[in-house]
């Protein structure tokens, strides 16, 4: 098609303000995948190594570690990390399934996205019940 035949372009916004655009559900799942991954990197990995180290050091160190993790701030941190792990895990599985070209159309992607969001929260609530 020659350039002159193109229909006149509709006026479009000239900037992309992420906070002014209503994000579709798969986009929310995607940004949470990134945020949860960052949390797991920043807090999850060092905390995991510390916990395993303390847990293997001695019965006393084990008990001290359990006491430290019983602190309300520690419990809240564990809960946030539990959510991050569940969300990242489930959203990752969703990606792997999509890599196999399953569930690629928009309605299916919306359904699986909602499933990931909800299941991660449900599993986190189960951990919350266990922690408190």
């Amino acid at each position, binding site marked *: 098609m020659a350039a002159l035949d193109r229909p006149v372009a509709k006026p479009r916004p000239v900037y992309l303000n992420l906070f002014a655009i209503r994000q579709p559900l798969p986009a929310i799942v995607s940004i949470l995948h990134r945020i949860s991954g960052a949390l797991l990197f920043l807090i999850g990995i060092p905390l995991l190594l510390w916990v395993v180290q303390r847990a293997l050091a001695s019965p006393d160190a084990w*008990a001290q570690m359990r006491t430290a993790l019983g602190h309300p701030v520690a419990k809240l941190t564990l809960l946030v990390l539990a959510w991050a792990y569940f969300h990242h895990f489930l959203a990752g*599985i969703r990606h*792997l399934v999509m890599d196999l070209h399953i569930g690629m159309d928009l309605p299916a992607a919306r359904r699986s996205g909602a499933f990931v969001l909800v299941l991660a929260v449900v599993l986190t609530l189960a951990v919350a019940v266990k922690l408190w």
Partner: protein
Amino acid sequence: MTRNRIVVGAHYGWRDWLVQRISAVVMALYTLLILGLLLWFGGLDYDAWKATFASEPFRLATFVFMLSLLWHAWVGVRNIAMDYIKPVSLRLTFEVAVIALLVGYTGWTIQVLWGGI
């Protein structure tokens, strides 16, 4: 052509993409293993924990999990850096710091797994 290459890019291959996915599968399998152990022991106490880690195959599996985790973290953090940190000097500095941290975590992992033997 080569002049347009980005020093701090993803190196134009699908290797990182593949590493991200393979390491994800390894971690998912290890997660299932841990879940199975938790169900088997019906929770965690010091003795069960210690006995589990006394097994050399379990230690090796844990090491493979940790290497997958750290390599997976590298791919993810580098992707984030490529999106938000634009100046090459800043991004390179950040990436070097992350690599140093991840290598340090690898050393810590080895110490935790085999340091007590």
